[in-house]
């Protein structure tokens, strides 16, 4: 072995000091990298003291500035930076028997603004994602209509269209925690939630084209997937703001989101926005299919169940800090979160640092749109004290997000769906964040 020069000894000392300031789990890698470099020969003497791991930091000129980058269309459809590989959908394997009929969650802890990139939109399906050739896809409108219609995608997309920003949420979001906290990550407590700009045709336009017969009260939406997903939608909603959507965030729908066409019922439980839409039937009563009886009904403590509970009532959650985003330094801290309501706009969000004893009103950030994700923020000065963080949203109808105890009192713990209660993050003195519930 070569004898270590004096320079190298200094360098090693410096690496050690640097490493002491790094989080524990990064320390070992850092030391290893440093040592690999010291073993090399060209180091140190020429440039002076280039500290391992800091070659790209000032005063040094970073490597990517000393060579050319890649050219246009080297990636014809752009991808996120490879340094963002951790920004992905995730599932909880034990939730379902099979990945074909399952769910994945959006990484809310890393998302910004109110739009979810289409590739990160949460997934939920009951028979897998079908691979549909749009040329071979048809939308049929039948039942109580004057003219039962069959539309190609081209014909469908020739109707006048509209674009709206709305959230989409599975009513089972948070449903794993009726009995107690069990998910140590925001992605799993609230990630069955996403926001997008949706482009499509008002369902009323299509139904009027077919001519609704007198006496009609409900519309059945049916998917072209292996589950043949069906939901009954009251005609009132169908003629209000329901869309037949073909695009999401500026491009055709992703296969997981119903390519080439889906229903979209703003503010309502995700399952009613039937994907891979192949048929709309107009009728005079609900069909009471599996997804509106066996599933998506809310069983109460007395054994009776609420049905047709369509609306996603107001909800909110703090996205930073959260278990995935622990507090890293003392001082001023930007607390952020998301609020949303299926009844309209979010009017106000209050934040508590002490488990709901005292509340302060947060600032709403950016666009405040109806039935859309809405950002809120608050600046706090953290000096290492333990916190019990909560957010409480109020929507434009005046409805206030309830506490979990209030929900449990009237519903029990077997509802699965529609748990929109105030969520609590416990911040420990070191800055770590835990998912807890308050009794």
């Amino acid at each position: 072995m070569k004898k270590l020069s004096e320079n190298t000894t200094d360098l090693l000392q410096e690496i050690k000091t640097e490493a002491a300031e790094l989080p524990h789990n990064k320390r070992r890698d850092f030391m290893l990298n440093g040592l690999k470099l010291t073993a090399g020969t060209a180091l140190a003497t020429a440039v002076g003291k280039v500290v391992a791991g800091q070659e790209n930091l000032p005063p040094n000129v970073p490597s990517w500035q000393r060579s050319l980058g890649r050219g246009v269309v080297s990636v014809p459809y752009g991808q996120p930076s490879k340094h963002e590989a951790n920004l992905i959908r995730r599932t909880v394997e034990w939730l379902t028997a099979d990945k074909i009929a399952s769910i994945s969650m959006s990484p809310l802890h890393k998302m910004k603004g109110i739009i979810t990139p289409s590739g990160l939109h949460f997934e939920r399906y009951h028979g897998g994602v079908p691979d549909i050739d749009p040329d071979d896809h048809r939308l049929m409108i039948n039942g109580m209509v004057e003219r039962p219609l069959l539309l190609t995608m081209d014909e469908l997309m020739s109707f006048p269209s509209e674009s709206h920003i709305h959230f989409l949420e599975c009513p089972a979001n948070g449903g794993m925690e009726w009995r107690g906290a069990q998910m140590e990550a925001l992605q799993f407590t609230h990630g069955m939630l996403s926001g997008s700009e949706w482009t499509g045709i008002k369902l009323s336009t299509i139904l009027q084209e077919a001519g609704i017969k007198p006496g009609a009260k409900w519309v059945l939406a049916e998917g072209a997937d292996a589950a043949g997903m069906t939901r009954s939608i009251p005609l009132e909603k169908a003629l209000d703001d329901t869309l037949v959507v073909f695009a999401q965030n500026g491009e055709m729908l992703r296969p997981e989101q119903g390519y080439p066409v889906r229903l979209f019922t703003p503010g309502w439980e995700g399952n009613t926005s039937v994907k891979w839409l192949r048929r709309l039937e107009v009728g005079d009563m609900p069909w009471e299919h599996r997804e509106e009886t066996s599933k998506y009904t809310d069983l109460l403590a007395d054994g009776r169940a609420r049905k047709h509970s369509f609306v996603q009532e107001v909800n909110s959650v703090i996205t930073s800090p959260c278990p995935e985003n622990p507090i890293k330094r003392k001082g001023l801290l930007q607390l952020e979160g998301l609020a949303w309501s299926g009844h309209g706009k979010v009017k106000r969000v209050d934040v508590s640092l002490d488990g709901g004893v005292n509340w302060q009103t947060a600032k709403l950030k950016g666009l405040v749109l109806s039935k859309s994700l809405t950002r809120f923020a608050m600046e706090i000065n953290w000096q290492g004290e333990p916190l019990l963080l909560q957010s409480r949203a109020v929507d434009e109808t005046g409805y206030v997000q309830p506490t979990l105890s209030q929900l449990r009192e009237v519903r029990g713990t077997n509802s699965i769906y529609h748990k929109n209660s105030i969520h609590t993050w416990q911040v420990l003195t070191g800055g770590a964040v835990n998912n807890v519930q308050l009794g």
Partner: protein
Amino acid sequence: MYNLAKNYFKILVLMSAAQGLLISAAYAETEGHYGLGRIATQEEIAGWDIDVRPDGLGLPAGSGSVADGEGLYEGKCASCHGSFGEGEGRWPILAGGFGTLSEGRPEKTVGSYWPYASTLYDYINRAMPFTAPQSLTPNETYAITAYVLYLNEIVDEDFVLSKGNFSTVVMPNAEGFFEDDRPDVRNPTCMKNCKDPSSIKVTSTIAGVTPTEHMEENAPIE
């Protein structure tokens, strides 16, 4: 399900056959405002309109017995749902659970929870068996539906289910559902001293059930 008056329909079929897609100005009343798409034929509708409603609308002609259903169920369903509907592994349970709906761990099954038998016919026909949806004939679907009802003690072993007697099947939990009546809670927007801080009890997370590998690089400061 809702057929057009026969003559009106014939004209449309002739028109679309003769002219491809478009319906001429002479039949303008048969066109919508935008004139997009074409009239779906009766045959096309029949192929796709498979839904069944609680009042029996949509049920095809046919019948099937509990006895026939037993063999079909054993061959096509039992590997996942169990011979008695008890569910193999994590696959759904189809039978039993009576009287558990108000218990701590309710077991929601066709027999204990489902309000309508039509839902069972419709769902089996459109989505089961899981790996071969829409592969059953009407008679097979009637027979398997009858058998799942039998596993739930809703019909006798000599029962034959048909379009004609469907409405006589009464589901035990038919009266168990009510229309959405939310909002069901009212939280006041208290701002100061909303509760006694000493009354707060913190319950932590059950450790070990969350997939957290992705979070390790974000370890907090020590």
